């Protein structure tokens, strides 16, 4: 029984068509022409309880719109949606008790109050029993190392501190599901790693279902087994991160460092990508060419100081999909 289920989910935004120019602004007032923009177009997906899924796509692909429908604050144009047995937009408040939300670009903490006062307010809002509140607060303060700024007004916190506060705020009421919208945006490497560690622990120890929206694919590689890729409102891939890499990342790069200058390096079965006389980069398809044979060929032909084999990372794969669009990978993958 999936905890999140959508079927043919669609959201169309309708807005008045604007006429450009100063007079145009006036004409817009009386215009009856509307523009329709399909933000989400037939999204069908289902998540099992305890899954940690990366929901990714380029800007404007429909990610945030989907999340807003899942939280119940946007009403779908058509399609079905169910979160923990509730239709979110029909029972927004009941749904709110099951979910926690963290926006990297927006805080739910009360700006003028000390951090801990925001937590107290949330305790009252969700009606969290004192023992549970105490237990969670203590755990989060320790995990996220918040004791030094617990009494600081939120407006004085650094971004990293504020994000930690936001994570705790979203989880005090033990939500079954957590939506994370770019939670690591703008953070330094250490703070990023701390947040990732926290997400992984919450998922593993509490079994919380997590949907992670991000542009930082290192987040996805570190945290998610499953990835849902959305573009132009359609889901273009839904499955294992490994499968995506296998299907899409068929090329490898062999980097050779020569002992001495080599002009016009060449290898049969690989394509020269770049060369500067002492190093060379060859690109090849691993389905058509075995790497070990290529390396043997290189060592027979040249005197080598170093050999490295580069796998494509998720980022370069996703970048190709954004630019070229998602097409079923060629035959070779079968």
């Amino acid at each position, binding site marked *: 029984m999936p905890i999140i289920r959508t079927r043919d989910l669609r959201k169309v*935004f309708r807005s008045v068509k604007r006429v450009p120019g100063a007079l145009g602004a006036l004409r817009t007032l009386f215009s009856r022409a509307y523009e329709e923009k399909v933000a989400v177009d037939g999204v069908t997906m289902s998540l099992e309880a305890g899954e940690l899924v990366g929901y990714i796509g380029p800007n404007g692909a429909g990610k945030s719109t989907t999340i807003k429908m899942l939280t*119940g604050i946007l*009403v779908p144009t058509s399609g079905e949606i169910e979160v923990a047995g509730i239709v979110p937009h029909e029972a927004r408040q009941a749904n709110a008790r099951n979910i926690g939300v963290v926006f990297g670009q927006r805080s739910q903490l009360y700006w003028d109050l000390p951090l801990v006062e925001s937590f107290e307010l949330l305790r009252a*809002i969700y009606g969290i029993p004192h023992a549970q509140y105490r237990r969670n607060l203590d755990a989060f303060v320790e995990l996220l190392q918040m004791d030094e700024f617990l009494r600081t007004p939120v407006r004085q916190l650094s971004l990293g501190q504020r994000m930690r506060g936001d994570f705790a705020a979203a989880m005090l009421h033990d939500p079954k599901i957590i939506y994370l919208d770019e939670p690591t945006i703008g953070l330094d490497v250490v703070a990023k790693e701390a947040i990732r560690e926290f997400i992984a622990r919450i998922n593993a120890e509490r079994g919380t279902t997590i949907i992670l929206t991000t542009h930082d694919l290192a987040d996805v590689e570190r945290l998610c087994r499953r990835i849902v890729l959305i573009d132009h409102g359609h889901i273009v891939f839904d499955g294992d991160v490994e499968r995506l890499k296998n299907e899409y990342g068929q090329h490898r790069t062999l980097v050779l460092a020569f002992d001495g200058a080599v002009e016009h390096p060449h290898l049969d079965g690989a394509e020269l990508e770049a060369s500067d006389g002492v190093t060379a980069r060859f690109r090849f398809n691993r389905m058509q060419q075995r790497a070990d044979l290529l390396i043997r060929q290189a060592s027979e032909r040249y005197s080598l100081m170093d050999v490295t084999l580069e796998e494509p990372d998720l980022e370069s794969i996703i970048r190709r999909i954004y630019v070229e669009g998602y097409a079923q990978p060629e035959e070779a993958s079968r």
Partner: protein
Amino acid sequence: MEVATEVGSLVLRVYLLRSLWTALYTQNLAPLNLPLHSMITYATVALLMSLILEVDGTRLIREKLREGTIATDLMKPISVPFYFFSDGIGQTGLHAVLVIPSLLFSLLLVRIDVPRPEVIGAFLLSFALGYCVNFFLNFLMNSIAFWTLETFAIQLIVRWVSDLLSGQVIPLTLFPGLLGRLVFALPFAAIYSTPLLIYVGVIAPAQWAGAFAMQIVWLTLFAGLSTLVWRAGSRRVVIQGG
């Protein structure tokens, strides 16, 4: 410091009001049924009421819609209109505390009539009803932000109209003839005029029930309208950016 300036400006306004009405009365512009001391009482109490009524808790609606932060509130298990109401009550409570020193100072400056306890009780009840009518009027005004995001002009117009027609500045008994009957039939009268006229005794105890009933009618109407507007508005929430 803030309290000091607040009290200072209030004392000045009370003094000006007293001077103004005294001057008008010596020019024989007096409304027939209101002696000068009642008029000064009326104006002073109106001023003190305005300190509380001008607190607009629903201003948050507009701000949150503009900034898109209403999304975070909608993701919580709370009734958002009730949240705005509570926020308004909190701010009002703070302002009520600020009113106390102002009240004491203005008592030094002008002599206000203090009616019998049951009249004060009726006044407070009527004031509470007026407060709620005012809340929903503000709520409706700020909810326009769901559709236009810019509500300043409309609010300014409604503010002018309501200042004049609510009895805040001049008692509605001053309006002559047909106009006089019309202004009493408008919802604005429920905000200032009804409690004030109860206070100064123009609305006699025998007419209290009718006055409360009228306020409750407006309150129910505005509350109902607010519910409809909120429902329609939140269905079309398209959070700006993000």
